[in-house]
């Protein structure tokens, strides 16, 4: 073997070990039977995995995160699909301004968005934390929704809508009959991308927490500062497998990676 033919496998091995290794260690650690987080794990048990489901705050924050990821992404799509449609089909006066405004939340660090929302929406308008979180996550996902949906609309000819209208369909009917079926993959991909982004998001939600109201990742950070047992590892593994599973299925059925 020459130096060059060794270079490829060794580089790949090291890089993948660095990227994936820690995740595997977390998975192994979550099956530990010991009391503290350690690797190699002390014995094998499912006790920490089981414990995850019994921690009350995890259950509540998981519910909250799930609600935000689904609700926030759905709301972002409800706002984002019409906006994408206007941007890709019409010559909109100020199109660039609209595009910049809706995609700005992606550029500004989440922690600033969260703080700004806390100080200038939540406090002055007496908005509930849950609603504030919902607004924040919607704004956060909106740029992804607009980007992905716009891309699929740009790839679809606009004259099929005109053809549908000339065949007797209303404008709205044409949208649902010939546009939606052709951008469905893009919308689903936007949903999955938005879901994963929202679910894993921390900084936006940091300041937006109140008694009993927290997102799961923020809750996990709080928990790991106090308790040093493998239950956070167990929860991390479960969540990781959940998102990998979702993305894997999306890739299989939608060709997800085309859209993101």
């Amino acid at each position, binding site marked *: 073997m020459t130096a060059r033919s060794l270079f490829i496998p060794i580089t790949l091995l090291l890089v993948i070990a660095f990227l994936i290794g820690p*995740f595997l260690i977390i998975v192994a650690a979550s099956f530990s039977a010991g009391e503290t987080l350690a690797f190699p794990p002390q014995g094998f048990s499912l006790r920490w995995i089981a414990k995850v489901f019994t921690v009350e705050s995890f259950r509540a924050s998981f519910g909250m995160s799930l609600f935000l990821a689904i609700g926030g992404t759905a709301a972002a799509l409800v706002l984002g699909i019409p906006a994408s449609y*206007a941007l890709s089909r019409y010559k909109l006066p100020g199109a660039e301004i609209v595009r910049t405004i809706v995609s700005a939340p992606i550029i500004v660090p989440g922690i600033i968005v969260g703080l700004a929302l806390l100080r200038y929406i939540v406090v002055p308008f007496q908005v509930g934390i849950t609603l504030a979180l919902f607004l924040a996550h919607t704004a956060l996902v909106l740029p992804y929704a607009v980007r992905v949906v716009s891309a699929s609309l740009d790839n679809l000819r606009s004259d099929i809508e*005109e053809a549908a209208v000339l065949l007797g369909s209303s404008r709205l009917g044409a949208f649902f009959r010939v546009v939606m079926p052709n951008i469905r993959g893009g919308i689903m991909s936007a949903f999955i991308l938005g879901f994963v982004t929202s679910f894993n998001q921390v900084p936006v939600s940091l300041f937006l927490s109140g008694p009993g109201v927290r997102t799961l990742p923020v809750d996990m950070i709080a928990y790991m500062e106090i308790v040093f047992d493998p239950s956070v590892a167990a929860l991390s593994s479960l969540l990781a497998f959940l998102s990998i599973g979702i993305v894997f299925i999306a890739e299989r059925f939608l060709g997800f990676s085309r859209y993101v």
Partner: protein
Amino acid sequence: MFQNRAEALALALPAAIFAAAVFLVPVVILLSDGFRAPTGGWTISAYTDFFSNSLNQTVFLRTLRLSALVTVASAVIGYAAAFAIVSLEPGAKGKVTGLVVLPLMISPVARTYAWIVILGRTGIVNQAFQALGITEAPLRILFSETAIFIGLLQLFLPLMIISLISALENMPKDAIPAARVLGANWFQVFWKVVLPLTKEGLVIGGTLVFTGSLTAYITPAILGGSKVLMLETLLYQQVAVSNNFVAASVIAFILIVMSFAANILLKRVATARNKQRSQA
């Protein structure tokens, strides 16, 4: 059929108004806080105060330094990895790329948490070092710049690798063999051929990694602890511990300016390159 402007506005405005109300306006007010004098009027004294504090200076420089180091390291490793990946068979290439992308799907909290297991006092690294007799007592690796560096690198390396893979794939197939035939050694091939041809990908990846590191919260929070702060964790402390909203606004402004500067730089370099190409 798509000429009606009122129609277009009706479709686009809800999203724009929402983003403006929930995001743009509050953020702009927040950013203006740092320029407001307590007595009314405008001032930059909050900024001079901020930068005259040595702790803040340290945090600012550390943030810049770590972000730059992570960017450089990810570029070096990224080139090696991207080279190795594009030289694979198509089938294997897809699978390995999948493995590289996989971590992006995993919650950053989970990914960062793993390093506690690895770098902690009883973690794998310390166990190995002690078993090999390199050190007597466990080293303190966690809650250090090193830990943050490793965590950020692991978090953002995939973005760099992906950018470089697509840049390398878009490179003319015969560029490297041609340079080799002309007698260039591997170093020259990289410096004179590969780097100029993949500069755009490098710049895109570099901006993602740099702004990502600059504005990362989870990694410095978990791996840096409350002593080794970066700008984001400092911002959090200013709010949560000191209730100092003016300082928070100053840090927010600095973070945004730095991210925007990096983004603008990206566009500059990318377009400068396009000009060169169209002239050629």
